């Protein structure tokens, strides 16, 4: 359950932070949430990964559907990907990996500094 709360928190606060700060605020939030929720390193990664994936995928899907896939199709061609969907997934995977590593880092740092609860 803690994992789910952590993911929800990460998604909401990353989304808010990205309104003001640059794209990497996703990493900062993933890092902090994984630490504050006392996740294990593996779960820290999972939390950040899923948060990044879900956030970036849903924001881009929302925009892409309203846009009639015009831009995602062009972006896919730009990156030599087979289609709009694959572009959305690949782009979101970048967010997922960044979130994942940040969450893992957060959890590890927490574990090093505050090993037990």
């Amino acid at each position, binding site marked *: 359950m803690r994992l789910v709360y952590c993911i929800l928190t990460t998604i909401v606060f990353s989304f808010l932070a990205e309104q003001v700060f640059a794209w990497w605020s996703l*990493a900062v939030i993933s890092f902090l949430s994984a630490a504050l929720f006392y996740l294990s390193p593996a779960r820290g990664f999972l939390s950040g990964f899923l948060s990044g994936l879900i956030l970036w995928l849903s924001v881009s899907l929302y925009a892409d559907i309203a846009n009639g896939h*015009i831009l995602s199709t062009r972006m896919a061609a730009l990156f030599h990907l087979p289609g709009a969907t694959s572009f959305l997934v690949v782009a979101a995977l970048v967010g997922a990996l960044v979130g994942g590593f940040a969450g893992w880092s957060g959890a590890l740092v927490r574990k090093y500094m505050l090993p037990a609860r």
Partner: protein
Amino acid sequence: MRLLRTLLLLFFTAGLIFLLDQPLSGLPALGRLLDPVNGWAAQAEPMGQFTSQDINLEALELPATVFFEERMVPHIVAQSEHDLYFLQGYIHAYFRLWQMDFQTRAAAGRVGEVVGERMAKDPRTGKIRNAVLEFDRGQRRKGMVFGAENSLEAMEADARTKLMLDAYRDGINSFITSLKFKDLPLEYKLMGFAPEPWTNLKTALLLKYMADDLTGYTEDFALTALRDALGTEQFNFLFPERRLQSKPVIPEGTAFAPASLSRPSSPPDDSVWVHFSSKAVARLDDYETAVGSNNWVLGGVHTRTGAPILCNDPHLGLNLPSLWFEMQLQSPEMNVYGVSLPGAPGIIIGFNDSLSWGFTNNYRDVKDFYEIERLNAGQYIFDGQSKNFDKRVETIGIKGKPDFTDTVYYSLHGPIMYDPSFPDPLGTGRLFAVQWMAHRASNELAAVYLLNRARDYLAFTEAIAHFECPAQNMIYADRAGNIAIWGQGVFINKWKDQGRYVMKGNTSATLWGEKIPVAENPHVLNPAQGFLFSANQITTDTSYPYWYNGYFHDFRSDRIYELLTATAPATVEDNMNMQQDVVSELARAGMPVLETLLRPDTIARAEWQGALNADSRDATRFQVFWELFYDKLWKKDFSGTLYPSPERTLDILLNDTSVAYHSAIVQAVEQVRQNWQDSLSRLAGADSWYEAKNTRLTHLARIDAFGYQHLKIGGWGVTINAAKPTHGPSWRMVVSLDKDSIRAFGVYPGGQSGNPGSPFYGSSVSRWAEGKYYRLLFLPRNAKGAQSQTHVWTLHPKGK
């Protein structure tokens, strides 16, 4: 151990973020770009959600309104001149900011600052060099910034154009300052730079960019080399100064006013000319992509309604975002509609409530080269005296590399464009200065200002008098029924052949002389024939008192003349159809002769009449044959220089007197026979004409994913619908100037938005390719009906 692991991971994560935040080896900063919140998806414009807005803009003097049509054409209704041009700048930036930025950077030779290094083989020397740097250096060396600065001074000295420039600049900057990273056009995110504040110099640069596109040729070098290599007689035969059967822009027989200046006599001997020892190989790609255009006007006697009809389709580079931006500008003194150039205020081609005008390139030579005899690093020889160069140190930025410093030396002829470090098209490494009308302090914007407000022919002539370079064939029609055309620009009263070849720069005998008074430029008002046209053919017959040379083309003008004289009273639709005409005079006239030589093979089916229709296979067969034949015929003697023009080649092909070339022609046909069949079989399956030629729209940053390929459109450079692979009709306009109203139609390849993520980025592409038009909505003054437009921006001066 745990500490090490933790630190390692932290380091890795930070490194990952760092790397994704920078552009790396040609890739954009992926993190910034792929983030949907602030990156790419912020430019995915929602369909059908362009909404009405209330906008507060501090700098506005009075409230204003902008009506947007369904296809995003803005109609600005402002109450002061300042507000009008302010809003035009704001709207240009709103739709086309990156394009304006990039084009003016290109004009100024500042592409490297944002693109960095691109290594490629230099076509002049065969060495691997940074192609972007060479481009930037070329821009500086030909004096683009020098010319723009000169013109800026003239534009800012005129109160009217100063107001226009300042208000326009402020409008752009007001939009730029409202942007966050998220709002930046996608290309900025892809290329990793940000807009800088707009300046009036940028507008001047954009206008010089157009001048360069239309007058910036270097064929003087090839002609000089060819004249030396061929000898006078053969040279004049193959490269005649004028084609006798040309139908000039000003109808034959039109009386020209006697010249107020007498023609200077040519220097008595050969000492003024530069010679090239061997027949050197010139690089002439800029000449071969020469751009063209059509315009014509029918007087009331030739139209169904009795009202004049004016048509114009300027042929320019086919790029996205489109060169043109369509709009209507309305202020208490003015009501004008047409296409504007993002980066410059005013309407360039269009109509107002009294009259309409259009342009084609005039092609008279206004760019000449001089060899400079250098005395020492800082001096050169002129009339036996030493003269000092002016020096201009050009600092050229290269993203990710140290700046490059290039010193450009200015002689009294102009900047030394070519020297050993930047060789001329023949690769001689000698010093050549360029004298170019675009270097001069001209104020074309004053012409635009006055043209947009002109009410009659007199006002039209006063307006265009300010248009000095690039020279244009300016066609005119008004609602009173007048039609006119001017070969307008500023030209030098030259002695015969002056500037057609490279000249010695060490003597005053070759200096440019007086300007020809503008009133003596070739023009005609209401000619007896009742119609006028231009398509880059020669301006006048031989009765024009001044000498000039140029790069004229005839096939399109011949065809326009044929159609204009053949049709019964014409309708708007007839004129639209004429703009789609794809009949090749070259194919029609040349094919019978070529087929005779090609027997037993035939080029096309007997019923084919030379129309280069999009799905025609006959067109492909002829075009491929002609390209191979033309190349084979001239390659041996002219490889790498200039070929005799297709017009001249056709004349030789048809003319009995060309016995000298008969065997070469027969041989060339024989030699390409097999090659032609092979080329055609390679096209198998994609051999309709549009597939074979591939007319395309290329994104300005060469991003293939943002372009369009293989557009289904016929035609070629020799046909009225001059859709070549990367050049073509950039704006088609047909205007009927009826007594009670103006009916206008237009279309351009692209769309109003410059954003590849917008539904309006390429929304007109297929309509343009199909040859269909939009009815242009020209709102009358104080139009209440305008309120019914889909989207309205209501603009308020903040705090007023």
